[in-house]
């Protein structure tokens, strides 16, 4: 029953996309493992880790596109869901360290021993089991999203207000996680992970497997998202996005639609965070920084809001630019990022995917000058 539902959303573009992602997920680890480092086609372990990180970001961008692109909820707090998923995974990995920590305490992670804690806090129970951690990866962000969404959507907090509220939530969480007595490692967060499911996290093979898992997760996330947006439910979501009051007056319980998609999206973000943490080897409270969450939104905007594929493309492009620029010209990066925010909102309201889609089919002329694109919405609004 699920398979037909998932496959319903597949059009030609989606199929091509899925093939590309799965090919990436298969070949990059293969080229890393099978070829000798001297080969020109060899992918370095660093490269695997980097692209693996991008895959997680892409899943995160997908989750933001689902709520923003299709339901009009501009969440500036998705970084929090991502980080919460990451923390759930981090807690599991911390428990896996066992007696190999600096203090060799079988129960307590190092930072708790350091702070003279005597026993494990109750909210750490169960995280030694992988299945429990995996459940929490989805549940914790989901519950937070449910609470925030329940309160916000029910009282019809929309638009900019909602964005600010979500930003305040992630800001509050950041402040909370920076505290040492919260029991999440405070400032330093969690790091020094040893192994996952019995495999060494540093090992090449584990990295390759994590990379593949990320690609599969992204493909699955894409399938779910495109199935939803192409279903009847998705049509209502788009209706809510374009005219919320009208949808409500037509008899739809708008808040439940929004709540469902918001919680689902938060769960996706949590999964992305959980896959991200073992690949980068650290999770700390700066992941909650409001700036991070806004950056996710710009990935989506660059790629093309409300296209799903665009979100993934945007995540890859912007993050590649970030990796390159922060390495080569660190002074420039913030100018570039800031300029990107302005340029995309002014000149590329539909992102790269929108630009490509508009080019060959609709107009015989080559790409319209950017000013023309910018003026149209302004005129339309006035």
């Amino acid at each position, binding site marked *: 029953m699920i398979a037909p539902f998932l496959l319903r959303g597949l059009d030609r573009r989606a199929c091509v996309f899925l093939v590309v992602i799965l090919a990436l997920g298969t070949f990059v680890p293969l080229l890393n493992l099978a070829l000798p480092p001297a080969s020109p086609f060899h992918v370095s372990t660093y490269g695997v880790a980097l692209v693996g990180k991008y895959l997680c970001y892409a899943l995160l961008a997908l989750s933001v596109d689902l709520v923003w692109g299709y339901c009009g909820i501009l969440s500036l707090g998705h970084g929090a869901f991502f980080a919460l998923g990451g923390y759930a995974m981090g807690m599991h990995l911390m428990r896996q360290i066992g007696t190999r920590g600096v203090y060799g305490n079988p129960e307590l992670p190092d930072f708790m021993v350091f702070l003279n804690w005597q026993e494990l806090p109750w909210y750490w129970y169960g995280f030694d089991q992988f299945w429990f951690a995996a459940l929490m990866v989805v549940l914790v962000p989901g519950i937070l999203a449910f609470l925030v969404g329940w309160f916000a959507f029910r009282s019809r907090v929309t638009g900019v*207000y909602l964005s600010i509220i979500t930003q305040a939530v992630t*800001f509050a969480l950041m402040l909370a996680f920076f505290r040492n007595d919260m029991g999440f490692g405070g400032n330093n967060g969690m790091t020094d992970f040893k192994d996952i499911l019995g495999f060494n996290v540093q090992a090449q093979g584990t990295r390759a497997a994590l990379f593949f898992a990320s690609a599969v997760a992204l493909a699955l996330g894409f399938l779910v998202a495109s199935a939803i947006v192409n279903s009847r439910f998705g049509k209502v979501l788009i209706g809510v996005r374009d005219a919320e009051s009208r949808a409500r007056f037509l008899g739809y319980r708008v808040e439940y639609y929004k709540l469902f998609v918001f919680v689902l999206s938060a769960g996706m973000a949590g999964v992305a965070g959980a896959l991200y943490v073992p690949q980068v080897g650290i999770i700390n409270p700066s992941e909650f920084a409001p700036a991070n969450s806004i950056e996710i939104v710009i990935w989506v905007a660059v790629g093309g809001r409300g296209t799903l594929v665009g979100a993934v493309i945007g995540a890859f492009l912007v993050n590649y630019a970030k990796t390159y620029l922060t390495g080569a010209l660190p002074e420039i990066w913030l100018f570039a990022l*800031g*300029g990107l*925010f302005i340029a995309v909102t002014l000149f590329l309201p539909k992102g790269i995917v929108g630009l490509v889609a508009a080019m060959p089919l609709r107009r015989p002329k080559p790409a319209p000058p950017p000013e023309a694109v910018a003026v149209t919405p302004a005129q339309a609004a006035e």
Partner: protein
Amino acid sequence: MTTFSNSSVIPAKAGIQGRRSSGYPWMPAFAGMTLQVVHWCRAIRRIGIAHALIAVSAFISLAPAAHAADLPSLINALGQGSFADREKAIEALAATGDGRVALVLQALGDGDLYARKSDDAVFIVRKQGADLTLFDPVSNAEVATAAAGEIDRVKVNNRLRRAIEAALGSLTLMGPDPRVRRDAAEAVFKSRDPTAIAALDQALAAETDESVKAVLHQARAAALLGTDASEGDKLAAIAVIAGRGDRDALQLLQAVHDASAGPVQEAALVGVRSIERNLALWEAGQNVWYGLSLGSVLLLAAIGLAITFGVMGVINMAHGEMVMLGAYTTYVVQDVIRTSAPGLFDYSLAIALPLAFLVAGGVGLLIERGIIRWLYGRPLETLLATWGLSLVLQQAVRSIFGPSNREVGAPSWMSGAFEVGSLTVTYSRMWIIVFALIVFALLTLLLRKTGFGLHMRAVTQNRAMAGAMGIRTPWINALTFALGSGIAGIAGVALSQIDNVSPNLGQGYIIDSFMVVVFGGVGNLWGTLVGAATLGIVNKFLEPYAGAVLGKILVLVFIILFIQKRPRGLFALKGRAVEA
């Protein structure tokens, strides 16, 4: 012997330390009221401690000095014997009540008192060029010069230093400057030196200043409690000290309570209780004050945002950067003044205010004309674009001025503090509250009494209708945005006085300002005022119980819940539109 070798190290240091804080030994013990101490320090520095002491000695030496004859021998006794002997000599000197002794004791504390090896005579030694010049300790006249080998420093240890300070305290009780007298009385209050009672009585008889008199009474009471005076006297003394009502009094009474028995102990307990009540009350007052102070800062940061958000429905994420631009304008103005016209420094803020308004307002106008007007009707995109702009502005400032904090000085009228009861009020905080209220009042006037304000309110309430009535809404948008940004700029001038001026200055305020706007509601400045003050006070009241961070989190949660009840804030505009 160990103490000796120990103390031989200390005088070298004491020479430096002593000059900075000599005669005011309670300073370190007074950590809780650092500001007050700083204030005193400034006052003392202004007078010049040596100057004051000389004045004191001149004043007192007019009085007939019975002990004048044996003064030199008493002073010479300082140079001999053990530390215990020297302590006795200091007490004997203090007992003379002679003002000239103050100078000698001061020199002793500073490590400037030397004994000549040849005849054991004691001199005050000052370095003049390569030579050491000997001054007569009594007349302060130049006597001779000496080589370093011919004289020995009169060594002091911490015990002696305390004795010196106590003696100095009682000696300066008669000084001509009420501030010095008051400080001296405070010194006696803290040392609780029973031998000072006679000096205190003498000073009380001569004292004319009421506030100094009160402190003298308290000092006398404190000193009295250390003696074996009658029970009645002690009870009266406890009442006097309880009336003082601050932390020092509390400490003293607690010590008395622990050390005594019977009615005195009971009275001390009653005194402790009443002081604790009193202190709790002051603490609440202090929280309100701090809360108002924080609220005024929030008000300044948020009020411009409230205007732009109210009129245009646009959240300007670069608003914090406008505050930062204002702060940097202040820095530049002060920099120019420092290099070219140092005399104008006290006016630097007044000069910076209009400039900051123009700079930030001009940048705001550019932003509106260049970016925001293309995004009307798309508030979420505007949010993103202005966020990008804030990144660019931050990085631009970082590239120009560097990433580190820039120092913005405080003009003289903004530094320092005064006391209301046990509440320390710093001038900078007070002026910022006043300034925030002035800005608020001017803005309210502008909105209520001018044509521009009328148009702005019309656009806030119903953009389409206002446009239909002939109001040029794009023009109003541009001016409103410039106005909001300009106000952020002058907020930056104020905030440069209490916060670090760094490229990240604005980011610290942006979320708090949004909270104020969301909480207070848009379209009504009173909402912003009440919102800012409420959030400020609630924050400061939560802090002692929950800690600064948790307090902030609780406030955020509170606002999120509050939004449930009133989605449009405290002072929402009433209307019939489905989507306001």
